[in-house]
């Protein structure tokens, strides 16, 4: 499903060029649950941004569902993100003024789904993450764990092919973190491809495949059997 071949990413800070990714080749199949690990500065976030179509590689070929991504326009990337990819962030990144339900509806707005259908599709998502009672609460009225569950519902609402989670438990206490992990592994069992960027061994331990990055390169690609 995901084919990265010799991906590099270089940032220019004035005169200095900083290479963040130095030739990543990676193949991810549908239904996998992958942990990307590595110390900070190892390039794991940048890799996630490229896989998530938020950024383009400096060189290399990225094929997502057999479609060349590196050459797409901003609008085409936006459309891929909207339909194919769900994001879960460490800081939840919910829109503070909107209720949980409205937050879940946002991706559907950008796919042009009419308001009534949006609600019909968003509600089951919130039920799926156990927030049926909290649909009309704003993010500030929810606990961290609940907010992250809203974010997961939002990531799933367009039935994406890939769920990208960047330190999804990083801002949560261990109990809420455990709940979130259970939800993610549960989703994976239902067939959703999930990539989790983390440096938490406990989180990585739940994944079947662990990819270790260091200095922009893959140090280890390990499949747990």
């Amino acid at each position: 499903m995901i084919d990265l071949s010799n991906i590099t990413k270089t940032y220019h800070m004035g005169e200095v060029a900083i290479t963040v990714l130095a030739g990543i080749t990676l193949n991810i199949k549908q239904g996998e649950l992958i942990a990307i690990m590595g110390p900070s500065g190892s390039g794991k976030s940048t890799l996630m941004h490229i896989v998530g179509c938020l950024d383009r590689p400096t060189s290399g070929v990225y094929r997502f569902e057999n479609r060349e991504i590196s050459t797409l326009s901003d609008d085409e990337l936006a459309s891929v993100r909207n339909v194919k990819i769900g994001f879960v962030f460490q800081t939840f990144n919910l829109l503070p003024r909107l209720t949980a339900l409205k937050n879940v509806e946002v991706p559907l707005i950008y796919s042009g789904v009419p308001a009534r259908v949006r609600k019909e599709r968003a509600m089951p998502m919130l039920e799926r993450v156990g927030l049926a009672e909290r649909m009309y609460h704003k993010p500030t009225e929810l606990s961290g764990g609940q907010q992250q569950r809203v974010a997961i519902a939002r990531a799933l609402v367009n039935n994406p092919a890939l769920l990208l989670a960047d330190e999804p438990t990083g801002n949560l206490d261990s109990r809420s973190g455990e709940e979130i992990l259970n939800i993610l592994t549960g989703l994976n069992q239902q067939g959703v491809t999930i990539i989790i960027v983390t440096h938490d061994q406990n989180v990585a331990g739940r994944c079947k495949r662990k990819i270790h990055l260091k200095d922009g390169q893959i140090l280890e690609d390990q499949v747990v059997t």
Partner: protein
Amino acid sequence: MNFLETFQVSFEAILSNKVRAGLTMLGVIIGVMAVILLVSIGEGARVYITKELTGLGTNLLIITPGKTSASGGFHPPSAGTVRKLTYDDSLALKRRVWLLTDAVPIVLGTGRIKYTNLGRDVMIIGVTPEFQRVRNLFVDSGSYVTQGDVDSKFKVVVLGTKVKEELFGDQNALGKVVMLSDVRYRVVGVMRKKGTSLGMDVDDVVYVPVTSGQELFDTDALFEIIASTPHAEDTDRAIAQIKDILIKRHAHREDFTIQTQGAMLDTMNTILGVLTAVLGGIAGISLLVGGIGIMNIMLVSVRERTREIGIRKALGARNSDIMAQFMIEAVTLSGAGGVLGIFIGVGLALLIPLFIDVLPTSVSFWSIAMAFTFSGAVGIFFGVYPASKAAQQDPIQALRFE
């Protein structure tokens, strides 16, 4: 993403910061209000002047000595080059220009009017009986200046109401003798009350026969001749005939000027149109300042919501969606400010004449339309830069923004 959705998103953003939105709108509100109010005052003056000028009587031609340029401007008659207009000129016009209903010779001067121990300076107008008709000013009691008075240079005077009241109070003035610049004049009539017209108090004058007026001012020249035609469409032909006759009488020189009421109206309209435009322009500047206020707040808003922009982009918003969201926000602010400004401006324009009666106002549809369009345009113009700044945000940078 359709327009309604985007509008809703923008509207929620505005509502989430009501005070700031209100203050931003205030700039536009004041701008639009000022445009409407000042244009209404300018328009009001124009409507007022037009009404007053048409109220002078209809289809008037005013012949004055001296040649002025066609576009207005005043050249004082200089000795030697200009022949005076005379009483005989007016008689000739009346006799030979068959398109004219009247040709009234006018002399104008000031003098002192005295009755018993009361006296005051007053404007004296020498006229013929037709003056009543051409200027719509009629006698109330007694009689007006008659043709006989004119022919025989009788020393009779018709008093304006104000003059009569000041000299005689409630007493009957008819038949009394007053001193007009030390000459004895008999009061034969009192005018009907009319009030001020174009800043001149027409009740504060006295009328004498034109011939005795000339004697009083020791001149044989006229101030002007007021002629009138029965129909407006006769004006051009009447002018031609008047020119023809007067040029012959004035040694083949066109040393006089014929002004029509229409031309005077046009001149006035031009002057007041410029005035209105200048007032509107000044008010427009405040609208511009309001627009800059919108841009300022939009830039702040874009910066504050960098993270929101990042989130929306990550969730699939295209650049155009973000652009539209902020554009609509800016246009809503200015448009809502525009509508409020229109209501306040129109309200004030309607209220002002109730309290200040020398300031007539006239709310014109085009000033409302213009103010509204302009405020919308201000929103678009000053919204483009912040909105495109928002749309161009890099999603990763925006998501990292704290």
